[in-house]
């Protein structure tokens, strides 16, 4: 077929060009290339890309970059970079104004994107900056094909950095697996044992399955390498699964911690707890909107401002709730339950009127996007790491307030024996207000955390109220430590179950477990020791 012949011919040019590194002779490209890049089917475009790379022109990197970023345009057979309203001629580097009328954007698909990524990575192996070379080598370690051997070898010869060297070696090993020389295949297979890439596992598995490998020694070595890679991957999976459990646990903890104070310590059945979370999340949204409007250059820092704002606003809502409604209903749990449920409906409707019924968009600050890779193959997203840290900080602060401050002492005194505390001069009613405000404020912080992960909408709180009560009840009423263990335990168990039976069944199993647990141990995980006044 002419198409594949075409592709193969250019493939030849491509590697040949890289090998010799032909110096650029002229700044202009064949105009036909521009036409091929802009129109025609994906096969001929890939051909054009390979031809460009083969030309060895240093400007090719700019073209490929523009193409990868959807910014490449063609006008009158000239290649342009057009993004954010600025058009630059890629062959001369001059900025063109106004944009040419005949300009046509070059569109790409995943197949071309893959081609460009590999080509860019190959070009960048010879970059002067270490970071650029490292990223390129990492990208190529799984993608190396037999055609790349020559380029990789040349890059390795030149490379001084040991880390980059290792990655190149892995890439080279992968591409050498098809070498006719068994000794070379043996070294390649052995080297691959040091990899932690799923691609290597796949390649080795296939090598063993298809019995395409004639040499027994190589097969044996491949088996050993495969075992090593699999073991490393299994560890990675376990770490990832544990992390997702801890992450879910920390979110549960943040949502439940406020309730652990209002319900757990003070004994108030606060059905509006979920709505306090919602107010915290909406405060985050409002702060983000303000930053966007007034301080766009500091937008990434909006979250830091949202944390105190959410605490104060939700805390104030809590204080108002306590002063106007809840304090009149102490000792009457059923009425409290109904009244706070009513408050929750009013809060939902109020937010709906203020912000609209649709979800609002709370964007992660850019420093919370993406993730970190502690072990190859395991990505821990930044937003979850930040939330786990936030949960720990909030927990420490709450524990500090309850156990190390005068207010905390009063709160504990009032909840343990209200009458006696009053007799020795504790202002019980003010303590109630402050404690409820504290619990509400902490719920607001939970709302900030949720806004970074889940959707923010008027009825988002409904989804968290049940989970929050489960954590508090499971942990043992009247206890902070219980809530911590319950949240972590529930998080890790839920994630483990989810991986095993799926999200829907996992949710059911968790509820069944909690029902059985509460029947066997109604007091929860932990019980306060000593005498206690009735709530």
């Amino acid at each position, binding site marked *: 077929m002419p198409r594949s012949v075409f592709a193969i011919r250019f493939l030849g040019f491509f590697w040949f060009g890289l090998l010799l590194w032909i110096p650029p002779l002229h700044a202009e490209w064949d105009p036909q290339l521009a036409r091929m890049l802009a129109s025609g089917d994906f096969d001929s475009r890939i051909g054009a890309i390979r031809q460009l790379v083969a030309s060895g022109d240093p400007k090719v990197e700019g073209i490929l970059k523009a193409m990868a970023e959807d910014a490449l345009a063609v006008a009158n057979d000239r290649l342009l970079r057009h993004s954010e309203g600025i058009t630059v001629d890629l062959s001369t580097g001059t900025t063109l104004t106004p944009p040419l009328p005949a300009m046509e954007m070059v*569109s790409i698909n995943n197949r071309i994107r893959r081609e460009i990524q590999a080509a860019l990575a190959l070009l960048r192996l010879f970059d002067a900056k270490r970071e650029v070379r490292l990223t390129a080598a990492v990208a190529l370690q799984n993608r190396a094909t037999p055609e790349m051997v020559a380029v990789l070898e040349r890059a390795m010869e030149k490379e001084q950095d040991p880390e980059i060297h290792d990655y190149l070696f892995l890439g080279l090993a992968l591409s050498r697996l098809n070498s006719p020389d068994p000794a070379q295949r043996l070294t390649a297979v052995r080297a691959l044992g040091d990899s932690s890439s799923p691609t290597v596992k796949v390649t080795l598995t296939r090598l063993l399955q298809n019995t395409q490998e004639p040499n027994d020694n190589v097969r044996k070595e491949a088996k050993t390498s495969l075992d090593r890679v699999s073991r490393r991957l299994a560890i990675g999976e376990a770490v990832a699964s544990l992390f997702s459990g801890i992450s879910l646990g920390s979110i549960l903890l943040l949502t439940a911690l406020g309730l652990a104070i209002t319900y757990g310590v003070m004994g108030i059945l606060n059905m509006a707890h979920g709505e306090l979370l919602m107010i915290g999340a909406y405060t985050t949204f409002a702060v983000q909107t303000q930053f966007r409007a007034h301080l766009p250059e500091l937008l990434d820092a909006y979250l830091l401002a949202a944390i105190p704002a959410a605490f104060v606003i939700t805390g104030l809502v809590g204080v108002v709730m306590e002063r106007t409604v809840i304090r*009149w209903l102490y000792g009457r749990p059923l009425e409290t339950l109904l009244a706070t449920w009513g408050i929750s409906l009013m809060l939902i409707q109020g937010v709906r009127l203020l912000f609209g019924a649709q979800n609002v968009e709370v964007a992660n600050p850019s420093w919370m*996007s993406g993730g970190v890779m502690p072990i190859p193959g395991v990505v821990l997203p930044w937003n979850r790491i930040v939330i786990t840290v936030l949960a720990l900080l909030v927990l420490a602060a709450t524990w500090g307030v309850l156990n190390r401050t005068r207010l905390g002492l009063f709160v504990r005194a009032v909840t343990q024996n209200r009458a006696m505390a009053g007799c020795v001069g504790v202002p019980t009613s003010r303590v109630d207000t402050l404690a409820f405000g504290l619990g509400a404020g902490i719920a607001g912080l939970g709302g900030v955390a949720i806004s970074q992960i889940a959707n923010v909408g008027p009825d988002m709180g409904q989804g968290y109220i049940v989970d929050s009560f489960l954590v508090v009840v499971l942990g043992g009423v009247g206890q902070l430590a219980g809530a911590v263990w319950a949240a972590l335990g529930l998080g890790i168990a839920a994630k483990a179950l989810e991986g095993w039976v799926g999200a829907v069944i996992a949710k059911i199993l968790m509820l069944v477990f909690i029902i059985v647990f509460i029947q066997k141990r109604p007091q929860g995980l932990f019980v306060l020791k000593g005498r206690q006044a009735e709530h």
Partner: protein
Amino acid sequence: MLRRHFLKLLSLTAASVSLGSLALPTPVQAAETIKVGILHSLSGTMAISETALKETALMTIEEINSQGGVLGKKLEPVIVDPASNWPLFAEKARQLLSKDKVDVVFGCWTSVSRKSVLPVFKELNGLLFYPVQYEGEELEKNVFYTGAAPNQQAIPAVEYLMSEDGGSATRFVLLGTDYVYPRTTNKILRAFLTSKGIGEADIMEEYTPFGHGDYQTIIAKIKKFASEGKKTAVISTINGDSNVPFYKELGNAGLKATDVPVVAFSVGEEELRGVDTKPLVGHLASWNYFMSLKNPVNDQFTKMYKDWAVKNKLPAADKVVTNDPMEATYIGLHLWKQAVEKAKSTEVDKVIPAMAGQSLKAPSGFEIKMDEKNHHLHKPVFIGEVKGDGQFNVVWKTPGPVRAAPWSPYIPGNEKKSDSPSQ
């Protein structure tokens, strides 16, 4: 004293509850109007997708009214909010048909909501225009389906993924929200994949509840499944606002479209508004319309909606987008208008036969026709890749409109089903 206080509170609560369930105020009735019911969730998990359809319907009604209305009468919208609550859909549908006496209803998104209102429309002989792609396996006299049937969306998308341009995938993850549409679509896709020689071991099916927000485990599972040897693609039938956490997690976990492409059937421009699409570039969606299509009808359609958003002060009005179900709503209203004018009546039994063969130059750039028999549209299919700005770049399309096959040939027993609704 306490009790009185409590009573006051209860009455406040009751007021807020009734406020929530009240329908939006309907305009005072003019003497000669034709009432058009709009039945879309304006709150709850589906509001992310359905609110824009209400706006589109209102805009189209205004457009029709400004051109003189239908049969010399103005259209009068009656809006209700079924709040993503499936039984409430049936209640609200009944209210529209028997209390407000609307002549036609435009509404529903999820198949479960459509299934919930179907008995009401059949019992009261109403007329429903359903604007969203769905699983097929249904053909009702009282419903016109202006979204895609599986052969107009799902099957072409999977064929594309298996082609060389689409990445030659031979392993598939079928991921969806747990209800009738994803389950049925996946049943059809499983049969289709099996007929193409894909083994059971190479298909993973996974479901999450409505409103699910934590996709860590599922994405870890997809990663593992994809690393077992063959080119893998994900087919997502996740619906509603769960898509936002799903795509956020996908971006954060570094699962790139060049490695494992995700093709979605319920994600369009509107759903991606709440997401940073830069890490998602290259993931796909299959629809019968994209906002980025270049043709005069679409330019006019998108401009009309943008103007509408600014005029009505919609949230983020400068950034509104159009999408496939919005186009389907627009087409549906216009075709209904043409049918009413042909029948010279809004009576359901006269409008239904008049709908057959109605056609319109649609924003997709093609002449869209209502099939003479099966109550579905002939529509073109486009496959688009997500771009950094939240729009789609069309990478594949059918040469022209495709006739819908509501009874998928990949489900056994369907070959005997009739191609037109029973009367």
